[in-house]
């Protein structure tokens, strides 16, 4: 296997899981522009700078122990301002994906939330709150969890923030020829996105 190299041909040391993330933030010099910029930093347990530092050091456990990356709302301020030109928002995303892929328990809730959200969008081209939240509750396999949200749900419903309106679904075959019901053909859009993401 050929080793990865920097522009000047310096081979780069590797670390298993975090490799792709480390790659993105190696050049970080801890100037703190990202932390200063971050709108959600107040809620984070670690500042973005702290997180990158841990990534540089390969502190996988600490990183995934932190909620920081899940709190990133992808405003892209840090990416815009990073003097090193690092793709920080993307790196936050990568961490989210990693957490999901690895099925890290601590982040189950968050990753399931994301998952449920995107599945609904994929199906309807929009958020259908009822299905979204049901998918989410279901994924957590905790029958008592929905109870805690009942009053909020009813309140929202009364105000017309969520509706029970049923979608008109059309049957569409996926790649494997399996028929699924969608509100429109968003699968292509999602596939295109996947392609683009794979390219970058």
């Amino acid at each position, binding site marked *: 296997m050929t080793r990865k190299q*920097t522009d*000047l041909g310096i*081979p780069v040391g590797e670390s298993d899981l975090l490799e792709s993330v480390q790659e993105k933030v*190696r050049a970080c010099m801890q100037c*703190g522009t990202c932390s200063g*910029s971050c709108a959600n930093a107040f809620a984070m347990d670690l500042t973005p700078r*702290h997180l990158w*530092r841990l990534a540089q050091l390969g502190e996988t456990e600490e990183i995934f122990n932190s909620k920081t990356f899940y709190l990133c709302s992808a405003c892209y301020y840090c990416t*815009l*301002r990073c003097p090193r030109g690092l793709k920080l928002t993307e790196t936050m995303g990568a961490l989210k994906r990693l957490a999901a892929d690895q099925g890290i328990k601590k982040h189950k809730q968050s990753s399931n939330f994301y998952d449920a959200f995107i599945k609904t969008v994929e199906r309807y081209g929009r958020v259908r709150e009822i299905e979204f939240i049901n998918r989410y509750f279901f994924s957590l396999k905790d029958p008592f969890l929905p109870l805690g949200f009942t009053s909020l749900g009813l309140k929202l419903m009364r105000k017309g923030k969520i509706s029970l309106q049923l979608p008109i679904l059309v049957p569409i075959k996926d790649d494997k020829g399996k028929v699924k019901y969608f509100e429109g053909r968003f699968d292509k859009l999602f596939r295109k996105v996947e392609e683009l993401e794979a390219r970058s």
Partner: protein
Amino acid sequence: MKKKIGSTLVVGSGISGIRSALDMAEQGYQVTLIDKEPHLGGVLTQLDYQFPTDHCGMCKMLPLVERDSSSQYCLRKGLFHENIDIMLSTELVAMEGEPGKFQVTLRQKSSIVDQERCIGCGECARVCPVEAPDPFNGGLTDRKAIYLPVPHNIPNAYVVDLDACTHCGECEKICPTHAIDFGKEERKKFRILVVDDELIVRDSLKEWLLDEGFDVDMAESGTEALEKMSKEHFHLKLLDIKMPGMDGVEVLKRAKEIRPDLPVVMMTAYATVETAVEAMKIGAHDYLMKPFDPDNLIPLIVNLYHDIQSAGVKEMEVGSVILAGGFDSYDPSTGKDTYGYGLFPNVVTSLQFERMVSGTGPNQGKILRPSDGKEVKKIAWFQCVGSRDQQADADFCSSACCMFAIKEALLAKEKSEGQIDTTIFYMDMRTFGKDFQRYRDRAEKESGVHFERSRVHSVETTGKDDGTLRVAYADTTGTKHEEDFDLVVLAAGQRPPTGAEEVAETCGVVLNPWGFCQVEGFSLSRTSSEGVLVGGSFSGLRDISESVIQASSASLEASRLIHSKGGGLAEEVSPETGFRDVSREMPQVLAVLCKCGGTLSESADFDEISSWLEAQGSVTGVHAIDSLCTHEGWDELKETLQGNSANRILIASCMPYVYARKLRELGRSAELNPELMEVVDIRTLAFPGRDTEKEAVHQEVRAVLSMGIGKLKGMDPLPVATSRIVQKALVVGGGIAGMTAGLAIADHGFEVTLVEKAAELGGNARTLHRTIEGHSPQELLEESISKVEKHPLIRTHTGAKIIYSQGHVGNFSTSIEKEDGQGETLDHGVTVLATGGIEAKTESYSYGESEAILTQHDLEEKLAEGGVEPANLKTVAMIQCVDSREEPRNYCSRICCQSALKNALFFKKQNPETDIYIFYRDMMSYGFMETYYSEARKAGVIFVPYDVGQKPEVSVEDGRPRLSALDPILGREWLLEPDLLVLSTGVVPDAGREVAEQFGVEVNQDGFYQEAESKWRPVDFIKEGVFMCGLAHSPRSIAESVAMAEAAAQRALRILNSDRLASGSVVAEVRHSLCALCERCVAFCPYEARHHDEDEEMIVVNELMCQGCGSCAAVCPNSASVLRGYRDQQVFEVIDAALENVV
């Protein structure tokens, strides 16, 4: 002085261009100094205050010997030197030939204003209706389209900004001396051919152009146009692109065949712009966009007309070219501009701030908010704007901004008497230069400048629309803060100068990836094109001292080249004799009054003044001239002097500065020593609009004239003394610096003795094996040693030491003890001290207690010997700033960060699995070195900042170092057990103090040689004739040492060049019969130009060293010491004259 055969072109007249030009001129070459701007001085014209004195001092660059060859006044004001031709608004447009014999073409833009006739009265600017942002004040103020480029420059003639000018002609009408000429008369002879298939276009163009006074002809097709061209002569062709039949591009091609020199301007609609651009490539002069609006079109054509008609083209041959184009500043409004530059008026660049504190700035030096003119109470400086920012395409550090910011913060403190709060936001404070660290510490501790290690992400308003700016940032611990500031100053980074690419192409030099001039190998001044040298910031932003050093290195190389091509041979200049001996005559003053073209007639009566003058005792003639500044006027003066018996000339006109050079010429033609001529300014006094009565003006004018006469009467100029020079050099120290300096001097044909205390030449370079850039010091070393050994003019003594030295510039005598114990006494005219430095010893961090603890130097040697196997290293730690940047060794050794980066990258390359930790305070990867810092980060080197108050701790257990340190980001301790712990201990001088004592020169508190002036005379000692270079001056890289050695050689050559050197006419002398030998003058002389000759029992003045400051005269109670030109009697006469009317 001997004049050398050979000449040089210096492109750019900033500080480095001036230094190079003066160097070459002082050596006796003919220099042409050009600048594309209409003024001298580059960016420094805008900067009044420079670190570390926070004032100026630029004048210290002026010649110290042969002083009369150049101007002797403020260098910011202007410059002249007998060997320098200055051409402003001029660009280098072509260069051919070979090194030693280049043919260069220079193109000088017309300024519309006759620079000789303009008297700077400013009437034109008063009537000019156009306002444009004034670049001199960084756009903070407006100026007119006709303006003074720099208010304090002389000659202070106005120039026209043709881009802004509407050609209304008001200025031309009002100019009292008819200096402004838009060439309307000439336009009749300027024939324009308009080629367009559309009648309406042809007709309207013709009408407009005829209105403007041009001669116009038309053609409706390409064919017709070509036909007309072959028959008649035109000066300009306006050519439509889209035409039936032959299109414009085709016509252009053919036209170029018939009349290649005819400027053709393409006319195009939007759709064919790309074609127009193509046309430019095949020779079109420019293009104009349709549809035409006469208001826009006419000025464009008139500009073209001026461009074509009045551009002076000059061709000449030069031996070498020095590029000193400087740099441009990053424009923070380009790119992402998260700081709102250009949006928020209170966000300014550091250069604009510099203007704000200047007396010639927008508020005469008061620091007020640009938004509302309110007093500024709080300022933030943001570092690294457009530097160290890959998103701004800047993986480099601009090197100078950190010091710039500290200086500005101190200026803000000083101007506000400490009232302004100052905060500098930074990533690394790069205080890597000599004495920078102490300056920073003083700013922080004594002046209360606040330093905040944080990169601010953006600037916002407070939302109250009051101009106040809100800055949010996270500190090192991650805590967020919000703070309001009145002013945010952006340290805008360096960018290559405009036109860099064109110049590079013209001269065939290679630019680096960022567009700066690429330098070669270990040289900081050689470009990829032989004979073309680079000085100053054109190869990357430099502070003044580095620029000056590099400029001298460039001139040395330029001179060496000319010399090697046979051009440096001296030619004796006829001595400046031929002055009449008037010492036995009674003073007879001819008074010459300039009426300033009649502009002063309202406020002063010249007849009355003339008759008053005639009544003055020693005045033998009075002559009034209409305009002395014109050629006619000056010729009239010369004529008047022909056969006139007057032996003193008093010129009453304007700005005495302007006349300094002219008087020298006049002196030659009239055979009268220019010291016997005095210019007094009566124009400022008699200028209309001063709201003073005529009688009061007369009284002032009389006083000033009387003072001039008083001064002249007492003048008894003696021939300027010359001193013999031993044209040999002694170089002490045989390292790279010493050898480079020795070779540079010997290559100019002068004998050099090189004395090295070690058994072999080479010094520190012997133990250096690679540089971070990948160059090989060993190759350089071998090459240098071999050249030194083979050079017929260099004698080398290794294993030798200095015993004793005495003498003064031009005549030193030094005894050495050679390796065999034999003594030898050397006579030499100059001394270069290159005694080097060594790595500092340390006892910190358990050094010496474990084999695994090394210094960077130890590591370098071990690596070279193969004593360290990178593959076996699991963990390496490096600690920077060991015992450095804190008292008593409170300076940055500049090279340790590079060494650490170099070695870290080496380890990573050998074994990427090695964990490398660098514990640092501020990474000093200045300039393009920053790339390697980025590289090291990318390679996974872990950098841990530490605070001087909380250093890493090292202990040794079982022979293995253990290191603990706080990671401020993570807020926790690092515990490492590195296989290697490498300490960057920095550099200390080797033999500085001892050798300095022997040669009677100074060292600073750290034992490094003390330069005469850190910025302007960085390689000189105060004691003239002794120069320094290399590590003995301060820590520096090999390339920087080489540059400094070349600079020192350059300074030495200016002395060695002649067998006799002259001082200046203003020098001190001693009246021995009155002298009581109290030696107070000896102690007071700042130049050590005096000594008590005990044998002769007299105080002797070394006229070459004497700079004419007169402090000896003032300290002498009975005026046994006097300064020529300022004798007591003269000053008394002047005082008497000044008070003549006071009763």
